[in-house]
């Protein structure tokens, strides 16, 4: 036993000797890049704040491009009618809602049919974006005025459902949105504004997404923003703040936004059609689509813009159980890996500009490989402590520094949120958010590291991805 421990001790010492310098360099590099992102986000928010302070009244008249809201729905009987009603009543001069019932086995279609008095239209949909699944029918409301189209199709997944919706859409812009999301009443006005301002160059915009768990929702509208009641969604709220208010904003400032969330993104329809729509075989279909657009337009040397709109646009329910969260994170990381690998040819190629030189290397180094490095730390540090090969105060101090830095980044995002949007106006919410930013590092972070590695590993092994079920607890309509 002593011999084994001695051998293990020697091995750990050797591993630490070999890896200490690279890991320290990585630690410094990732933290420096985060500081750069914070600075970029600050500059962008300062510009946004100036724009907001000097904004002029815009009702979307005139050049406001029409928008088709694409809503894929699979077994969404509980909330689909409320969601569609809220989408139809958004403040925007010209928009339609296209719901694609992806072969639901529940009452999704029946609820829609009853609520909107749907009648079948013998319409053949265009095949601009290839779709494998069979279309079962196209329906519109009997009143002939409500701008709703419902398409029924065989079940073939979310991406194909969106591709069908793209084919059915008639407006020049398409917004991909989940059926269980809630849009801000002015959300469309915010995200379409860049298209109206620069109609010949803008090709896509992404809006900020916030967790809706715990908020008071009436008739598909948020009437009071509240903190989620449990810690798992609270910590995700902190993650969302960081990802959207620092990450996406910073990348947008740099002109190299490569990820628009699948929960809400707005695209020029002709551009999406041109690149072939969503890839039904991709796990990270939202990321993959944006990468394909970048590649195609840069290959053709076209002048275009993809922008992030930091105003809260869409609210979505985040997982409340570890099982669902695990499935989501596995899927996200697998999608990240598969997309980065598929577009590896864009790395360090001059024609892809900052996307190839900055954004993609960052995603490879600090998004894809980060869990691997962190996992290494999670294993080696306790082992080294157990074997007594590291100075305990030194190790603790290093951990406090690493996790303290993570808290610092979150607090920077909180400051931006408080300064620009202040959606949570209760003092208690502030305390809970600060606590969540600390608690995130005690178990949650380590669990997500493991889940992300699971997703990556299953892809490397060529294991078929199983989507699983996102158990929705539903909005607490009017009673929360």
């Amino acid at each position: 036993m002593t011999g084994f421990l001695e051998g293990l001790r020697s091995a750990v010492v050797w591993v630490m000797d070999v890896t200490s310098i690279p890991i320290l360099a990585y630690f410094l590099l990732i933290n420096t890049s985060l500081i750069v992102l914070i600075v970029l986000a600050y500059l962008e928010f300062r510009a946004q704040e100036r724009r907001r302070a000097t904004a002029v009244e815009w009702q979307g008249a005139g050049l406001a491009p029409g928008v088709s809201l694409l809503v894929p729905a699979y077994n969404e009987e509980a909330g689909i009618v409320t969601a569609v009603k809220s989408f139809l009543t958004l403040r925007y001069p010209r928009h339609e809602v296209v719901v694609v019932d992806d072969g639901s086995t529940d009452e999704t279609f029946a609820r829609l049919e009853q609520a909107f008095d749907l009648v079948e239209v013998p319409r053949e949909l265009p095949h601009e974006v290839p779709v494998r699944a069979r279309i079962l029918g196209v329906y519109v409301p009997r009143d002939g005025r409500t701008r709703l189209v419902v398409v029924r199709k065989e079940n073939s997944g979310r991406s194909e459902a969106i591709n069908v919706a793209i084919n059915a859409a008639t407006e020049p812009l398409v917004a991909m949105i989940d059926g269980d999301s809630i849009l801000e009443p002015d959300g469309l006005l915010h995200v379409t504004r860049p298209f109206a301002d620069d109609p010949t160059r803008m090709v896509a915009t992404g809006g900020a997404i916030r967790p809706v768990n715990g908020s008071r929702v009436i008739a598909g509208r948020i009437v009071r923003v509240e903190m989620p009641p449990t810690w798992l969604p609270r910590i995700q709220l902190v993650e969302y703040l960081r990802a959207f208010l620092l990450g996406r904003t910073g990348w947008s400032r740099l002109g190299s936004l490569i990820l628009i969330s699948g929960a809400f993104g707005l695209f020029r329809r002709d551009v999406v059609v041109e690149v072939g729509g969503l890839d039904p075989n991709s796990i990270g279909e939202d990321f993959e689509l944006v990468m394909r657009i970048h590649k195609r337009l840069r290959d053709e040397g076209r002048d275009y813009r993809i922008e992030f709109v930091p105003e809260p646009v869409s609210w979505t329910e985040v997982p409340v159980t570890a099982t669902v969260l695990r499935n989501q994170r596995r899927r996200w990381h697998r999608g990240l890996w598969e997309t980065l690998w598929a577009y590896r040819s864009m790395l360090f190629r001059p024609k892809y500009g900052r996307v190839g030189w900055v954004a993609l290397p960052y995603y490879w180094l600090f998004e894809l490989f980060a869990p691997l490095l962190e996992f290494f730390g999670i294993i080696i540090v306790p082992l080294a402590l157990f074997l007594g090969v590291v100075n305990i105060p030194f190790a603790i101090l290093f951990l406090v520094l690493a996790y303290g830095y993570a808290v610092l980044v979150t607090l920077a995002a909180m400051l931006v949120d408080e300064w620009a949007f202040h959606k949570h106006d209760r003092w208690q919410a502030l305390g809970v958010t600060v606590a969540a930013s600390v608690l995130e590092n005690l178990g949650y972070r380590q669990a997500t590291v493991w889940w992300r590695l699971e997703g990556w590993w299953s892809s490397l092994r060529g294991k078929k991805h199983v989507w699983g079920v996102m158990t929705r607890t539903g909005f607490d309509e009017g009673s929360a």
Partner: protein
Amino acid sequence: MLTFSAQLLVGATIAVLGTCLVLVIVVIAVRMHRQGRQKRDEMLLAPLRGPLITVASGEDDDGAATEQLTWATGVTRDVLDAAIVDLLTKIRGLPAEQLVGVLTAHGAVDRAKADLHHRSLVRRAKAAQMLGLAGGPDAVPLLVGALGDSTVQVRNSAAWGLGLIGDASAAGAVLAATGGEQGGIPASTSAETLQSMGVGISDVLATAFDDGDARTRMVAAHVTGDRSFTRGLPALRRLLADDPDLTVRETCATAIGRLGRAEDVTVLARHVAVDEPLSLRRACAAALGELGEAGAVPVLATLLDDADPRLAEIAASGLLGLGADGRAALAGREDTAPVRAARTVAELQRASA
């Protein structure tokens, strides 16, 4: 004695934790400042809310409420002026004139003229907006000058202000600034500004079709169609055929559909050919239906068998709207999906009308 690396680690940890603490304090301070300011503004505005509503609703017949508003001084005056500016974007007529009178009495309009050259871009932009809201003969040259500002926020505010005033003499400057080298004016503001300037801009608009910037050409095409400036038709036809930007071509097609003549059937028909981009073909087919010319019937009829079902349905809808000739062209094709879909939608719309 701590080693150098340990000292560094301790220093970095203290710095990080200290920054965290500072950030928490700043977050709290930002919230307290915002909430305190809101309360203060509400408190200061409370005694003036009654007279303000009286003036804004057009019920200040004797001018007493307006006069009461002019008495405000110091911080109260600034808060009141901000509230008046908010209201002025929503009201017109005599109440607006009375409120502008209050702003003038407070010296806000004169301050705005001076602020157009202020160091802060927010002050410059707000000054441009104030001048637009207040109007007056000397505001137009000042706002035209502000269209050349180095920041888009000020240019945007100046264009918006010119739109409120609606003086057609500024149209050329607005169009020239739309696709400017520094980023121009947002197309949406430019279009709305020009739309509010009346018919006097049609000549200036015609010159914008030759602008080197696609955004300017698109705005010109959009406004020409929206305001039915038929003098722009030759330029619209030219850009539809030749413009390098597809968005501009589609905008021209839509504009021709709104204001075109019988001879435009041939123009639009040229661009429904299969070798044109699909989105342009659809825009031209819709425009052919919109034209309402009997000459469009044979062109639309040929599209009923197009490989693109959307284009075929657009053509069928257009034919249904072209009276007896159009409906006759659908004879024998009633069983095709595009025609049945177009007919069903038209019947639903007719039934609910």
